[in-house]
């Protein structure tokens, strides 16, 4: 019988990195189902293409880097599906292939693969194809159109609410339809209610924390309230900004990538707030109608710095017990010093220092004699009061 010399602790949490990634894939399946419902089988073909391509490229890169090949590491599959989700269903296959290749071959593996990449691979891939083929990326079909699986030329493409907002117009359409995703937009980013339920699932499974989604959406909403692009009533700007584009989808699936986001809670809050603000700035002043992926990439560069900032705040700036007690004791210490200043104890100390040794003892003796006498007189007074 050979016993394992394992290190403590001797029991482990039953979940692992694999379950973490599988949870995200499970959360993306309902979104894919909604896309299938609105746009037909081409969505599934695109998603499968991207997932298989990313997985294969991931294995290839691991092989080239001579690292251990894990067939149950599904992080690349998430990247593939996320890339397809933020693109329209009519996007040509070569765009998807380019995005996936860029994500795996340039954004992820040259930096060291899983756990060491600086930029979110999915965001990097989408950003690359956005810059290369903006018309293909921002031309959306209407839901329930007959979209063929392979040749999509000649379809009527319409503008999304995000591009209407870009020219300060009011997006047409019912708010309920927008929540359900029944408007022209990217494949997986329109069904807001489904995305929110996916968020609840991921929070419940502890795959992600609340910090990044809440701060991304909160800061974006705040920016939209302060600087609205469309003003029907006071809330309309914020509501349309949140529902249009891939803000909610990105806040749940893209910004929460554990590798490229900070790991300390305070840093996560700053990271999310930065993404929200940068997205709104890019929507206002950027060249494209949607700048979420660029905002994520920009904040990815800062994630380690934000972690260091949070650690600095935790250990050097924030009030640990001793410092808090010192600050709480400050008013008392100041008042004591003030009362000391009023009496002549300070002067007495100075005289003690200045006088010769023999006199020093004398003054010290005087102090000793005077101390108890004052105390006893106070006691006497108290006793007299009592009588």
């Amino acid at each position, binding site marked *: 019988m050979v016993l394992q010399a*394992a290190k403590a602790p001797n029991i*482990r949490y039953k979940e692992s990195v694999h379950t973490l990634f599988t949870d995200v894939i499970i959360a993306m399946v309902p979104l894919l189902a909604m896309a299938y419902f609105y746009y037909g089988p081409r969505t599934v073909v695109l998603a499968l293409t991207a997932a298989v391509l990313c997985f294969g490229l991931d294995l290839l890169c691991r092989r080239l880097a001579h690292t251990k090949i894990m067939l149950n590491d599904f992080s690349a599959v998430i990247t593939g599906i996320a890339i397809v989700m933020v693109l329209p269903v009519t996007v040509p296959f070569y765009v998807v292939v380019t995005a996936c290749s860029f994500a795996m071959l340039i954004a992820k593996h040259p930096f060291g693969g899983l756990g060491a990449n600086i930029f979110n691979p999915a965001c990097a891939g989408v950003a690359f194809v956005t810059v290369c083929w903006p018309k293909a990326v921002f031309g959306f079909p209407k839901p329930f159109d007959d979209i063929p699986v392979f040749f999509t030329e000649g379809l009527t493409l319409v503008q999304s609410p995000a591009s209407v907002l870009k020219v300060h117009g009011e997006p047409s359409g019912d708010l309920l339809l927008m929540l359900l995703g029944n408007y022209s937009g990217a494949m997986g980013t329109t069904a807001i209610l489904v995305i929110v339920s996916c968020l609840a699932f991921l929070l419940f499974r502890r795959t992600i924390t609340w910090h990044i989604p809440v701060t991304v959406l909160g800061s974006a909403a705040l920016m939209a309230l302060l600087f609205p692009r469309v003003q029907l009533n006071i809330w309309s700007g914020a509501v349309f900004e949140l529902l249009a584009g891939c803000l909610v989808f990105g806040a749940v699936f893209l910004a929460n990538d554990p590798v490229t986001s900070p790991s300390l809670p305070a840093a996560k809050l700053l990271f999310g707030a930065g993404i929200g603000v940068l997205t709104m700035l890019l929507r206002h002043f950027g060249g494209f109608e949607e700048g979420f992926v660029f905002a994520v990439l920009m904040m990815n560069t800062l994630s380690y710095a934000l972690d260091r900032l949070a650690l600095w705040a935790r250990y050097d700036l924030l009030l640990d017990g001793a410092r808090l007690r010192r600050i709480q004791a400050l008013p008392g210490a100041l008042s004591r010093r003030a009362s000391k200043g009023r009496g002549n104890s300070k002067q007495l100390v100075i005289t003690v220092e200045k006088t010769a040794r023999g006199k020093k003892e004398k003054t010290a003796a005087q102090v000793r004699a005077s101390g108890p006498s004052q105390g006893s007189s106070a006691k006497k007074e108290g006793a007299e009061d009592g009588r």
Partner: protein
Amino acid sequence: MAAGWLSGENLYQAKEPAFSREQKQFLNPKTLYLPDYNETGAPPSKALTADAVLLGRYELYYPRLACESFMRFSLKPGSSEEPETQEIALPRKRHKKRGKRLLTHTEETLEPLRLELEQLIEAARRADIVDETDARPLCDKLQMLYEGAYTVLVCDAVDEQPYVSSNINTLLQHGAEVLGALKMVALARGIDTYFALCYADIDDAETVIPHRMYEIPVRRIYGRYPVRDRVKKALSKYGRGYIIGAQALLHLWRAVSAGREQNTAIVTVAGDCVGNPCNVEVRVGTPAREVLEFCGLIKNPARVVMGGSMRGVSIVDLDLPVLYTTRAVLAFSKPIQNPVLSCILCGRCVESCPRKLAPNYLYKFMQTNNTAALTKLQVEKCIECGVCSYVCPANLELTHAIKKAKHLVRGGVE
């Protein structure tokens, strides 16, 4: 950041069925292995070796124990029987016909002997009692209690680690002895407030822990796993507290009432390989093999753990003995997987660390031996509770790395 009660981890306690079962005794092992402390000048105490014959010396590697030389003893025939004891009459439980009832909300008051604290200290010294919670001799602890200005006396039955229930089981099974000794010490020292403390969140318990036993309150400590860190804070609302382990109190009672010396320890034998999990009172020095055989193995274990499931050590040699501070002997059939992937910076360890450290960064800086950064990130504050390794989805050995980092920061060679 995270408040104290939010950090840590909810662990499934898995204390049943050992928690509710009656304690057993296994006092006659074939052999005893006792660490040979000759190098440091303290041989194994006479209480342990009085009825044993030295067979030889062996080199065994016991993790976390400085001594590697063990003495092997065999017990003299006929010496293993229980010594004749003249125990002081304790209040009997009423429902004797139905068998031993564990869950009596006992109303009787204990009337222990009125002894001076010096007599108790002398009794503890004669009986060689060691407190199982902090491995200090009980006579030293009582001396400290005698000298310090303590206002609260606490019997420690906090078994917060999963599978371990040796102290709370001792409190429930030997309530009269444990609480009698507690009251005896409290009366001798003149302390009015004394109670037993147990862990509240035993989620699979079939036995309800009573709130009062023999008129002495049994208080609970709530919260997620590393609660031992917060015991002092929890006691501060009652006054300045002093904690003595339940097993040490049991042995003190036996020493005072019957003059018995401590040569046993109570351990929980559990795990998925053990056929009959229960709490067993065994001789100190009994090898793990005999303890496991006593309870029955139903599978071949892949890991055997001495000590708690979170902080204990995995042993590779089944001859390693139960010592005073061993609280459990656990046998598991599944090995722990190696690290599956690299750290993905998910931050779960940061969330659950009870001391607000950043274990993922400590691990990273430990790999590069960056002592300055380790000091800056306050690696010294780690209490080695093991929560970070427990939650890590990549199965990294964070706790082990941080232990090494602490050693490195203190100036030791790795």
